[in-house]
């Protein structure tokens, strides 16, 4: 799935459009799922994913291979998602708690979520985490990225990430067991 830096730089030299098409086909799914797990709503995830790739297209000539291609794209996706969530919170005329309840109801909607009861509970528990912590948990547990990769993407130290993940797991365990 992941293109190497060498692959992408080689194609970029010859044809920017071709390189971009390869990037879109390789990364649209993981980026969409990364974003969707954070925002839950499909329409929001759809818009944000498109915005991510529009930004990738605008900056693609500046990509020199200093970081890995997927790190670069994931970083853009993380920033777009966190910006969206922060804006949403600022714009919300209802309380944050009510907002979380509304998003949680989307998980209950069988048209939006095809997971079983346990997965639903996990997703709802994740919603109770602060955004950045939830993002770290998703990337570590669900996307199975290494701490090093997550550190490259978020710009946070490995030690801080480990601590954040540890606390996230504890919280989720408590939330899920309390719900039964």
């Amino acid at each position, binding site marked *: 799935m992941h293109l190497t830096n060498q692959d992408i730089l080689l194609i970029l030299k010859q044809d920017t459009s071709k390189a971009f098409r390869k990037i879109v086909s390789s990364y649209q799914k993981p980026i969409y799922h990364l974003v969707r797990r954070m925002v839950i709503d499909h329409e929001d995830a759809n818009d944000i994913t498109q915005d991510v*790739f529009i930004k990738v297209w605008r900056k693609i000539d500046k990509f020199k291979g200093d970081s890995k291609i997927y790190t670069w794209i994931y970083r853009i996706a993380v920033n777009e998602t966190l910006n969206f969530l922060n804006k949403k919170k600022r714009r919300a005329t209802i309380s944050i708690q009510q907002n979380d309840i509304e998003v949680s109801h989307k998980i209950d909607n069988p048209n939006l979520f095809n997971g079983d009861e346990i997965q639903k509970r996990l997703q709802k528990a994740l919603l109770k985490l602060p955004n950045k912590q939830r993002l770290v948990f998703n990337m570590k547990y669900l996307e199975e990225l290494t701490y090093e990769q997550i550190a490259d993407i978020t710009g946070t130290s490995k030690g801080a990430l480990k601590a954040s993940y540890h606390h996230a797991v504890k919280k989720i365990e408590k939330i899920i067991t309390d719900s039964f």
Partner: protein
Amino acid sequence: MKRLLLIVFKPIYSLHVKEQELSMKNKFNISATDKSGDFLVSENYFDELSANILNKTIHKTSNSKINFPNYKIVAVAASILVIAGLISIKILIQDNNENKLSKIESYVLNQVDSDLIVEFIDENNMMNIIEIEDLDYIDESLLIDEL
């Protein structure tokens, strides 16, 4: 950490056990590539997504690159046409003024005091009044009546 989570989930799962045997990994691994647990999307969603992305990026840039020189050409051509039009109108007006006295459709000669006044209607149906000295500009063959 995964083991801890599995310890939590295992007893919970047993409460919800279904007849089919599902592997622990498939049941609880909600990874991006695992279909069970992924958010629902339509079959052709990702085809549509990539089409939308390309329309807003590569295709948008290509289209604007094609349109831009055409826009310039159209603007220049339009300016030339306008200028040509204005010049033509000026020539016509000038022509008209110079020639109108030669194209008298009807005239009336009147004498007012000692001056000879000619009233005539030109090709544009406009009433013109000229003093006799201006008759030099009139083609005499067109005069019908005379004092």
